[in-house]
């Protein structure tokens, strides 16, 4: 069986750097930080009092009041970015065969605020179970894919992938694979997360996963810097329209890039710590390149997982050096989490968008907040510190790794 080719024909983003694709991308290139004091709740008693929140967000600019009540924030974000991507793709929904159009979305947690509110209200009561009938359908992670399909009438494959911070990349890989196999022509994919709530901050703080640099939120996310002290929690959503190449060509679609391959692996090591030698990270990049039928030397840019944690950044770099050998020094490497913070289950989506845009615009967004070199990293590696770099980007690889030891990697290439 001849596998189909898959291309990206639409993008949408709702991020801490901007509430649409254009603002997101231009702020990535400018090196803007999305971090600031938490506004969603009073963080006074929390160890970390800042996050990368979506700014100036009023749900009533997008939905009516009744819709807002029935959707957790992570679903609202999903609806908004997928709508931008659909519009961007120029797909004519009337002409589209919707039996072969699907939605595979990613979310690491789902409706955390809804869960927190409902369970709190129960625990403060007298034991009478007065749960809201929308509690479960608002909270479950898969409702995002369900809601998107209802809006567009897409009857094809429909589900949500849950693999913590790898969720959206798993979603994209699945969406790509279904198109390659001919099971769908068009897929809406991506991910969304909205866990800047007490339960999210408190939970990640307890794990000692978050930066506690409260005196300087904008410089807290500093991947590969010697003084990095944890990740900065982010929120938002990214959406991509993946489409079978001939289907896209036949309608004269704008094509951003080809999605050539995806890799998946497990560390099988520890619930939260990465494998110290980056075993899973090594394997997943090898798998992705093999799936893409590409050599390591063909990659120009790696958008790394690079969360700004002491251990994670090291093991990922070890893995890159093992996979790419001497070519590692020709690569541009950057962690856009230095600007966006860590969007957990949505990270893979907005970072895939950064990778696709790097190919389209031939420029690599930076890793900001570099102050002090860490001697554990070979100085010959180019981490694109502090400033975007123009260069030829023919192919880009995007890594995302999740708690649980889930590793995913996806490869995009310029369309010939």
């Amino acid at each position: 069986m001849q596998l189909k080719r898959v291309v990206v024909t639409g993008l949408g983003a709702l991020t801490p750097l901007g509430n649409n694709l254009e603002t997101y991308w231009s702020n990535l290139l400018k090196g803007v930080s999305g971090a600031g004091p938490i506004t969603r709740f009073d963080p006074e008693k929390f160890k970390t009092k800042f996050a990368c929140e979506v700014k100036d967000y009023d749900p009533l600019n997008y939905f009516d009041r009744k819709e807002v009540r029935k959707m957790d924030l992570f679903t609202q974000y999903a609806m908004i970015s997928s709508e931008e991507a659909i519009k961007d793709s120029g797909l004519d929904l009337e002409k589209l065969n919707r039996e072969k159009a699907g939605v595979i979305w990613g979310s690491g947690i789902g409706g955390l605020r809804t869960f927190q509110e409902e369970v709190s209200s129960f625990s403060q009561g007298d034991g009478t179970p007065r749960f809201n009938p929308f509690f479960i359908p608002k909270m479950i992670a898969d409702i995002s894919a369900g809601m998107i399909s209802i809006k567009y009438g897409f009857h094809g494959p429909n589900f949500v992938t849950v693999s913590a911070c790898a969720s959206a990349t798993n979603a994209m890989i699945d969406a790509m694979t279904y198109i390659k196999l001919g099971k769908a022509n068009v897929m809406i994919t991506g991910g969304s997360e909205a866990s800047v709530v007490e339960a999210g901050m408190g939970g990640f703080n307890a794990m000692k996963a978050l930066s506690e640099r409260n005196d300087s939120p904008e410089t807290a996310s500093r991947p590969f810097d010697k003084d990095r002290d944890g990740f900065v929690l982010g929120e938002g959503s990214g959406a991509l329209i993946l489409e079978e190449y001939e289907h896209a060509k036949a309608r004269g679609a704008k094509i951003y890039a080809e999605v050539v391959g995806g890799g998946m692996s497990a560390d099988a090591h520890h619930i939260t710590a990465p494998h110290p030698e980056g075993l899973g990270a090594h394997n997943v990049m090898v798998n992705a390149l093999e799936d893409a039928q590409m050599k390591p030397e063909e990659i120009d840019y790696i958008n790394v997982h690079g969360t700004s944690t002491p251990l994670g950044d090291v093991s990922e770099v070890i893995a890159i050096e093992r996979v790419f050998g001497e070519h590692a020094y020709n690569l541009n490497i950057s962690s856009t989490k230095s600007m966006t913070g860590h969007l957990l289950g949505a990270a893979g989506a907005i970072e895939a968008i950064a990778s696709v845009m790097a190919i389209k615009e031939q420029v690599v967004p930076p890793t900001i907040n570099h102050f002090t070199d860490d001697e554990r990293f070979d100085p010959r590696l180019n981490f694109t510190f502090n400033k975007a770099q123009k260069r030829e980007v023919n192919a880009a690889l995007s890594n995302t790794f999740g708690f649980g030891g889930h590793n995913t990697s996806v490869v995009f290439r310029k369309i010939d």
Partner: protein
Amino acid sequence: MSEIASKVKSIIIDKLGVEDSEVTPEASFTNDLGADSLDTVELIMEFEKEFNISIPDDQAENIATVGDAISYLEANVQQ
């Protein structure tokens, strides 16, 4: 309009996102006001909370219109 009726009306407007003028006594939650089965359950729960009563399921099933809700509550809420 009784105090109960006006509270019922405002709950319906809030939960179903409808206009004041649509909330007539004859209006059916599902046929006229766009409620689905979950909305109806939520409405009943809101009435229970607001008026501090418990509405048994077999009674709740008979509350299909704005007028049904108002008359049930006027008959069962201690004023």
